[in-house]
């Protein structure tokens, strides 16, 4: 069993890679791409007054947007992978993972026009004084980082002008196929085309001037990068993970990146949202099982009775009600103060005053105080109801069918012939054998519940994974979406693994060794 579980855990890796690759490609293909929401919004999360180029520089640096999608994805995988190569990352006090600045890109095809790259002097290595506090070290890094971002933005801006100039020159000589729709030259244009643009378009001086600008901006940016690298190498923050081969191989917790819509590490966002979603589901799923399985058993033992017919009909009727509609009805009739009962809270997971409540319910001056736990449960009533009501039908029908199958089995006749009372026949013999399909149902119920909780969380404004994912979809927050897919994938696959392990426990004929 141990080896089987290990094998399954290892097999999760390719599944997760496939899953996240799909999500990654979907985001990459979506119109406007990952930065779309930022470009439209006022860029509120970034330093005020940033130019468009600086914004782009920020995004490119953070998400590697100037690389092909597949390379971006491999980079993401590298960050998520617990096994890291090369220099170890560092973790800032905010929880943000800081890594060494990436290599800077030279202006494309500069070598056709200008043979030499400007020399960049390497700065002296930085050594932090023993007396420097953490804040001072952090400030030193931030200063170097901001300086580099500015110069890098400059470099990108001048490079874009250079490419636009070349693009115009290429259009001049009717080589439109090497020009992007935005008017810049394609970065993979052949050398010959660039040579012809230089000589035949009559824009030689213009091109040379734009390249000179680009190269000098590149040189200063490269200098700033090396300075930042020097600060980074001095290790202003604590290093992440454990080294295996120092400087080459280390093991660290997966880095899910920063959410650009909220400016916080994704890990922190998920650490807040996932427990809420799991709480919802771990209340809802037992409720489904506690109601559906016994009623399925009763329906089987009293086949054709009014209970069988009535419960079957009721569950199927409930199953047919769309979740969104049911949520709205519940809000309108049970939660709303004006038109409904007002018996339940309308939104959220806690009352406003929940912060001041005691943990357990108590009496204060003769007044009943709900306490934090009861308050939370009270808020969870409607969301949980919305999650469970569709679940009864399939599970109870499945239980009923499995029980009926087993009632006719030969071993039941044997048990009767032994003199086993009928109650024990149902509970000990038939039910135990009907467990397999009931466990199988868990495999299909659990993912459906997680999906269903997206809608329910949105309607009831419960700040769980569902709300997080919807917000991330609207803002095309790639890191949050990927992390969501990743975590939900892991949770689901663990649930399936659990079901398979339960299989083996329920049925001795199943063995994985």
């Amino acid at each position, binding site marked *: 069993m141990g080896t089987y579980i290990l094998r399954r855990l290892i097999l999760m890796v390719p599944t997760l890679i496939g899953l996240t690759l799909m999500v990654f490609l979907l985001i990459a293909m979506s119109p406007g791409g990952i930065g779309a929401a930022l470009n439209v919004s006022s860029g509120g999360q970034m330093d005020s007054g940033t130019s468009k180029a600086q914004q782009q520089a920020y995004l490119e640096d953070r998400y590697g947007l100037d690389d092909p999608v597949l390379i971006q994805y491999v980079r993401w995988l590298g960050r998520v992978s617990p096994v890291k190569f090369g220099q170890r990352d560092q973790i800032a006090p905010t929880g943000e993972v800081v890594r060494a600045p990436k290599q800077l890109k030279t202006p494309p095809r500069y070598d056709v026009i200008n043979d030499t790259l400007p020399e960049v002097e390497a700065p002296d290595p930085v050594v932090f004084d023993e007396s420097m506090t953490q804040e001072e070290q952090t400030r030193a890094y931030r200063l170097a980082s901001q300086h580099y971002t500015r110069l890098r933005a400059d470099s990108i801006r001048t490079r874009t002008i250079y490419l636009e100039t070349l693009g115009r020159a290429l259009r001049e000589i009717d080589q439109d196929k090497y020009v992007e729709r935005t008017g810049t030259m394609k970065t993979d244009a052949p050398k010959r085309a660039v040579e012809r643009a230089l000589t035949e378009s009559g824009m030689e001086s213009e091109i040379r001037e734009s390249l000179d600008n680009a190269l000098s901006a590149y040189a200063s940016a490269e200098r700033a990068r090396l300075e930042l690298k020097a600060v980074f190498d001095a290790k202003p923050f604590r290093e992440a993970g454990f080294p295996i081969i120092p400087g080459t191989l280390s093991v660290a917790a997966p880095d899910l990146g920063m959410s650009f819509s909220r400016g916080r590490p994704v890990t922190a966002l998920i650490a807040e949202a996932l427990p809420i979603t799991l709480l919802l589901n771990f209340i809802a799923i037992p409720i489904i099982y506690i109601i559906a399985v016994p009623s399925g058993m009763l329906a089987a033992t009293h086949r054709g009775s009014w209970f069988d017919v009535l419960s079957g009909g009721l569950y199927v009727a409930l199953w047919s009600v769309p979740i969104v509609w049911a949520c709205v009805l519940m809000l309108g009739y049970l939660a709303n103060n004006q038109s409904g009962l007002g018996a339940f809270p309308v939104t959220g997971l806690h009352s406003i005053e929940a912060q001041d409540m005691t943990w357990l319910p108590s009496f204060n001056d003769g007044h009943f105080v709900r306490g934090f736990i009861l308050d939370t449960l009270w808020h969870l009533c409607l969301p949980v109801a919305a999650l469970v009501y569709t679940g009864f039908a399939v599970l109870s029908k499945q239980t009923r069918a499995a029980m009926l199958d087993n009632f006719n*089995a*030969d*071993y039941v*006749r*044997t*048990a*009767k*012939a*032994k*003199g*086993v*009372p*009928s109650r024990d026949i149902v509970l000990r*013999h038939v039910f*135990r*054998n009907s467990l397999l399909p009931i466990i199988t149902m868990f495999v299909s119920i659990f993912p459906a519940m997680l999906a269903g909780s997206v809608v329910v969380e949105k309607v009831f404004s419960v700040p769980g994974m569902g709300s997080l994912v919807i917000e991330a979809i609207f803002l095309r927050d790639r890191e949050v979406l990927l992390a969501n897919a990743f975590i939900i994938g892991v949770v689901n696959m663990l649930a399936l693994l659990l079901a398979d392990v339960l299989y083996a426990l*329920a*049925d*001795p*004929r199943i063995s994985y060794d």
Partner: protein
Amino acid sequence: MTQAPAQTSEPKASKVNIHEPIMEVNNLAVSFDNGSGPRIQAVDGVQMSVYPRQTLAVVGESGCGKSVTSMSSMQLIPRPPGRFDRGRIDYRLENGKLVNLLELSEKEMRSIRGNEIAMIFQEPMTSLNPVYTVGDQIIEAITLHQPVSTKQAWDIAVEAMDAVGIPDPNGRMKAYPHQFSGGMRQRVMIAMALACQPRLLLADEPTTALDVTIQAQILELIQELKQTRDMAVILITHDLGVVAENSDVVCVMYAGRVVEYANVYDLFDNPRHPYTRGLLASIPKIGSRHDRLVTIDEVVKNPEEFKKLPGADKGITPWWPWNDAPKDLAARNEPAGDYCLHKIADDHWVGCWRTEALKDDNSPPPELEFRCADQKQ
């Protein structure tokens, strides 16, 4: 393989009068609801009896009502759709009291099942619960009927497994049914049936699914336990070789009725009903050459065969559902009134049409205290 099991728990028998039948089936009729169509009469007017230390073989083709008869005596017929129309099954308790098994309440029946009457089914592969160890299943039977601790039940179960020749019984107690072969599973079934020392064993084709050597071992085992425990056995089978080898009294059934009832020697030497003759004629005999075998059809479709009974000239004709009833049929106004189980000779009964000649026939119900073992001594 089989020595008599060491008995730590008290053997039940000894005081029992072995000259009184332990179970008598009287005029039993069972029918099943067929949904839209008419009710299906599975058995009608069935009569038989079995004595302690005796094996009654019930023989007949599939669907003739053998299993329904035995299941009825355990009230294992699902009702509905099944229904007991008429008749009674009298069972003699240890204190000599007679109870009608068809009328016992579910609770009373539970103390009979497994304890007084045990049953072995024909599908050893599916008759054990796959999710419990065989030990659990045997112990369940023991603790249901005997006031013993789990530890004692374990010992009794190990003894029972040993008695039926399962090697390493202590270790095999913890094995699951799927870890046993078919023959071993049937042994487990027998061990389970015998663990409570029943006084009557219903063996419903116990060897059908097994190969011949295992079959012989299992039957030998049943024979031996019958002798050591004063147990009565009803052996349901369609294998006449098994019947000849293992039974004392034979009851041949067809279409839900008894067509012939005699001790095993009488029946094989002198079959009276054409169906029985056909059955016996269709067995290939080692040492004689056949171009082809005689089929039952060839016998029962020959009208001459039906005129061989003593008293045929007076109108005593063997009952056969596919034949037209004789012209002088004097059917009584009751179900199965066209039929009677007529005592044709000493210790020999044949199912006949109730013609004028048998109008007032009141043959005693078949009761044969005959044991091959007694004959041999």
